[in-house]
């Protein structure tokens, strides 16, 4: 009985999460049209559903983040303005992108490495987007 109730609550939450993600996607599209790429990516990373097990929610959020990442051009501006708390979330989505095997997503581009120093800070390897390959390969190495 308790399991059925939990499933019912989870289903309600899933619907709420999906509608929130859809609203977020519309906001991301409008930001992309205004060429506010960094804000679009920040919006995509904010409110990522952390504890849900529903694959639809995860996929829906992944599509939104993927759209924002593919639109990115200036990665220096991104990393200078992105809060460090988003690095872990961004890293997870990057590895998810790398695991797809989809060519436009996985094709790597010329890489330039940059590290931030300090205890417990993240080291970031960035790549500059090329004209042909939209998905920038950014690997975040945790520097301890």
């Amino acid at each position, binding site marked *: 009985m308790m399991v059925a109730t939990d499933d019912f609550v989870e289903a309600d939450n899933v619907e709420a999460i999906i509608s929130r993600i859809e609203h977020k996607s519309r906001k991301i599209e409008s930001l992309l049209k205004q060429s506010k790429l960094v804000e679009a990516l920040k919006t995509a990373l904010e409110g990522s559903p952390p504890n849900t097990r529903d694959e639809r929610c995860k996929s829906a959020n992944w599509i939104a983040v993927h759209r924002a990442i593919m639109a990115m051009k200036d990665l220096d501006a991104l990393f200078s303005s992105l809060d460090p708390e988003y690095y872990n979330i961004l890293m997870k989505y990057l*590895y998810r992108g*790398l*695991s797809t095997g989809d*060519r436009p997503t996985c094709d*790597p581009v*010329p890489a330039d490495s940059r590290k931030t120093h300090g205890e417990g800070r993240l080291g970031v390897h960035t*790549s500059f987007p090329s004209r042909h390959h939209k998905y920038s*390969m950014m*690997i975040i*190495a945790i520097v301890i």
Partner: protein
Amino acid sequence: MANSLRLYLTCIRNTLEAAMCLQNFPCQEVERHNKPEVELKTSPELLLKPILICRNEAEKCLIETSINSLRISLKVKQADELENILTKKFLRFLSMRAEAFQVLRRKPVQGYDLSFLITNYHCEEMQKHKLIDFIVQFMEDIDKEISELKMSVNTRGRLVAAEFLKQFI
């Protein structure tokens, strides 16, 4: 080296540098036993989420990490049937001599062509960055080896065919 291969290998190198943080951890199930947890997978709290890095649909690398061991599985590009056969034979040749490599697994993981198993003992005996250099260099060289083998087979085939057909001239 092609740009895309270089960046694929760089991606794998960086991931290995982050993932290869291994420590000694005795088995929780059996007393006085010490087993690579990535192989057993009995305790989920000791395992990290596997990372899959795809260069394209045909080439990929799976990195599975646990507290005391790391498993790297590679799927090598095989463009045609000949490359398929050559890769299979060549990698089987290497796998049968796994003791010489120390970090090579005798049998690859399902769905992959070759697997490495690195434990905390390997990290104690050998330098971490050297191990990573070895893995990356191996991945780079395997493509060259397969290409050379293919060229060698084609060359020999052409020579044999030319010699055989001379008698009909």
